[in-house]
C-alpha cells in the first residue's frame, strides 16, 4: 500500500493522523481547564506509528495498546464519541467510566486494551496470537509498546513465547527516546533496540517512526510474514513525544532545542508535503496524491469529528456509582462465544 501516491490511502492516513492530533489537543485542553480528571499520556508527535501500523491490519486483527494509547485506539477504528465519553467519565464511554485513558479500548475493533502497566500487553499479545494459532485462524496481533517496555521482564518472556511458537505477532516499539525521563542511551547498551530481536531469533528492523509509509511498509512485511506462518517480528519506529510524559512532567531531562528539532520533523506536516507532491519523500514524476483542498478536507473532517465527539460525550450521562460493583465479575452462564463481547 502506497500511502503517499494512492489518494484513498493518503486521505485515510492523513485524516487518521489529524484525528489523533486533534483528539489529543482537545483532551489536553480540557484537562488544563479542569474538565478532565486523572492523568493523561499524549502521543502528539507520534501519530505516524499507529496510523502506519494499523493500515497494515485487516478486520479481525488484534492490537494490544499502552498507557499512551489514544492513537492506537483511533487508528484501529474506535468511535471517537465513546472514547471521549470514557475520558469524561461517562456511562457511554468504552469502559463505562471504569477505565479512563489508561484502559481505553474498543474490543469490537480488536483492541484488547490499553494498559497502565508498562509491557503488560506484550505477553497478552503472545497469548492472543496463540489463540489465533490454536484455532487455525489467520489473524495477526500487533503489540504496541514504548522503548521503556523493552527492559521489562514481561517483554522478554512475551517475545520469547511468540518466537519459539512462531506466533502471528508483530511487536511494534514506539521508540520516542525516553521512558518517562530515562533516555534510551542510558537504559540500553545497544544502538538500536532492534538488536534485541536477534537474541530471540526473530527479524528486527528500525524505521523512521515519523514516516507513516516507512512504518506501514515494515509492519506490512511483518504482518504478511506472521499471517503466512512465518512467526513474529520486531519493528522499532523512531519517533518523539512533543508533550511531557504525563501531567507531572517538567521536562527537566531534555532540552528545549531537542524538542524543537523534533517538532520541526512533524510527521503530519511532512506527510502533507509528501502527498501534495512537495515533500522530500514523494515519489518520482507521478501526480500528487492529494490536492491542497483535499488536505484541507482531511483536516476539517478530523476537527469536526473530534468536536462532534465532545458534544455527544458531554451530553451523555455520568458513570453511575450505584452500579460500581457490577462488572467486577462476569456473570456465570453468560453466553460467551469468545472471551470478548462486542
Amino acid at each position, binding site marked *: 500500500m502506497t500511502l503517499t501516491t494512492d489518494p484513498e490511502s493518503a486521505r485515510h492516513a492523513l485524516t487518521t493522523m489529524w484525528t489523533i492530533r486533534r483528539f489529543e489537543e482537545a483532551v489536553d485542553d480540557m484537562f488544563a481547564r479542569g474538565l478532565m480528571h486523572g492523568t493523561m499520556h499524549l502521543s502528539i508527535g507520534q501519530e505516524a506509528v499507529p496510523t502506519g501500523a494499523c493500515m497494515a491490519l485487516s478486520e479481525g486483527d*488484534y492490537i494490544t495498546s499502552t498507557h499512551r494509547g489514544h492513537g492506537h485506539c483511533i487508528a484501529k477504528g474506535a468511535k471517537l464519541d465513546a472514547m471521549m465519553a470514557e475520558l469524561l467519565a461517562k456511562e457511554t464511554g468504552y*469502559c463505562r467510566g471504569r477505565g479512563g485513558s489508561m*484502559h481505553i479500548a474498543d474490543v469490537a475493533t480488536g483492541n484488547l486494551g490499553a494498559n497502565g502497566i508498562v509491557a503488560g500487553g506484550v505477553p*497478552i499479545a503472545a*497469548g492472543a496470537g496463540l489463540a489465533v494459532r490454536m484455532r487455525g485462524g489467520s489473524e495477526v496481533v500487533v503489540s504496541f509498546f514504548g522503548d521503556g517496555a523493552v527492559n521489562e521482564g*514481561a517483554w522478554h518472556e512475551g517475545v520469547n513465547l511468540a518466537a519459539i511458537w512462531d506466533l502471528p505477532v508483530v511487536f511494534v516499539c514506539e521508540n520516542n527516546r525516553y521512558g518517562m525521563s530515562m533516555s534510551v542511551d542510558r537504559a540500553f547498551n545497544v544502538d538500536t533496540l532492534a538488536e534485541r530481536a536477534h537474541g530471540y531469533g526473530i527479524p528486527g528492523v528500525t524505521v523512521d517512526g515519523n514516516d507513516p509509509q516507512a512504518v506501514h511498509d515494515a509492519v506490512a512485511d511483518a504482518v504478511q510474514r506472521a499471517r503466512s506462518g512465518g512467526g513474529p517480528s520486531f519493528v522499532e519506529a523512531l519517533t518523539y513525544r512533543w508533550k511531557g510524559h504525563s501531567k507531572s512532567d517538567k521536562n527537566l531531562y531534555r532540552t528545549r532545542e531537542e524538542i524543537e528539532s523534533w517538532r520541526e520533523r512533524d510527521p503530519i506536516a511532512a506527510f502533507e508535503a509528501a502527498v501534495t507532491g512537495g515533500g522530500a519523500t514523494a515519489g518520482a514524476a507521478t501526480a500528487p496524491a492529494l490536492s491542497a483542498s483535499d488536505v484541507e478536507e482531511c483536516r476539517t473532517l478530523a476537527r469536526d469529528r473530534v468536536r462532534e465527539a465532545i458534544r455527544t460525550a458531554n451530553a451523555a450521562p455520568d458513570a453511575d456509582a450505584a452500579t460500581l460493583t457490577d*462488572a467486577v465479575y462476569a456473570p456465570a452462564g453468560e453466553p460467551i462465544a469468545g*472471551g*470478548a463481547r462486542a
Partner: protein
Amino acid sequence: MTTTSDTRPASGPVDSAAVEPRTLTYSEAVREAMAQAMAADDRVFLFGEDVGTYGGAFGVSGDLVHRFGTERVRDTPISELGIVGAAVGAGLAGMRPIVEIQFSDFTAQAMDQIANQAAKIHFMLGGAATVPMVLRAPGGSGTGAAAQHSQSLEAWFAHVPGLKVVMPSTAADAKGLLLSAIDDPNPVIVLEHKLLYKQSGPVPEEPVRVPLGETAVRRTGTDVTIVATGVMVSRALEAAERLAADGVSAGVLDPRTLRPLDDRTIVDSVAATGRALLVQEAPKTGGFMSEIAARIVESPAFGRLQAPVSRLCGLDAPIPYAPQLEQAAVPQVDDIVTKAGELVRRW
C-alpha cells in the same frame, strides 16, 4: 472416560444421583477434569512448565499429552509471567486456557498478570471483555522443599477483587471444582495441595460440577465449629474423631472456595455451636482465617459466641527445611485436638 455432551460449554450439568463413584487419587481427579473439559470443548487447553512429556512436576497432567497432543498440552519455557500473560491473552481472544504453575510460590513471578491484568480487565473495560482462565498451582508444606517451595498464598489472591479462589481438599472436589472453574468466565486460581495429590477418594466418572461458593459441611458437631482449608481439612476431621472419643462434638467446615466465600454456612454453624476454631496452614498474620474471623464477629453469630473466635495457623515464619521444624511450623492433628478441647472446656 466418558463425556455426556459435546456442546459448549464443556458438557451440561449432570444429575449427581445418577453417577456411580469410583476411587481416584486427587491428582487423577484433576487430570480427569482437564481431560473431560478438553474432550468436550476445543477451546480448553493446558500449558505450563513440563506439563507435556514429563507429565507435570507432580505428575498431574500425566499422559494428557499423549491423548491431546503437544499443541493442547503445551510445554512452556520457564517464564511464569509470560505464561500467565499468554493465558490472559488467549482467554481474551476466545480460548479457555488452563495454566499450571509448578509451585504456587512462583505465582509471585506472575503477580502482575494475575492481579493487575487478569483480575481487573473485565472491570477496567466496563464489562466489554472477559478473561476466562484457570491457574492451577500446588501449595503447602510437608515435602522438605523449604521456604520458596512450600507456601500457602491463598490470602494474596483472596484479597484481589476479580479473582475467584478455589482450594479443593478432596479428590471429588478437585475434579468438580476444577470443572466449575473451567466453565467460569472469570479468572480462577485453583490452589491444589501437594500432600493431597496421592490421597484417594470416590470421584464420579461423569463431569459433575461442584459449584463455586458452597461451604461443605464435612462433619456436624454441636460444641465447636472447626473451619479448615486445604490439607487441614483432613487433619481437622481426624482431630474431630479423636475429640469425639473425648466427648467433644466438633463440626468441620470446608469453605472450598475462598472467593466467592459462602460465609453463611460458617456463620450459621458458629451461631449454633457458639465456638469457632479456624485452622489454616498459612502463617497466621494476615491469613485468610482472619477474614473468616472478622466475618463471624460482624455477623449475627457474634451475639451467640461463647468463646473467643480462635485461629490455629502456621507460624509467622518461612517454611524451614528440617523435617522436625517443618512439622512444627504448621498445625498438626494434635494441635487441633488440644486447641479445640481448650476452647470447649475453658469457655
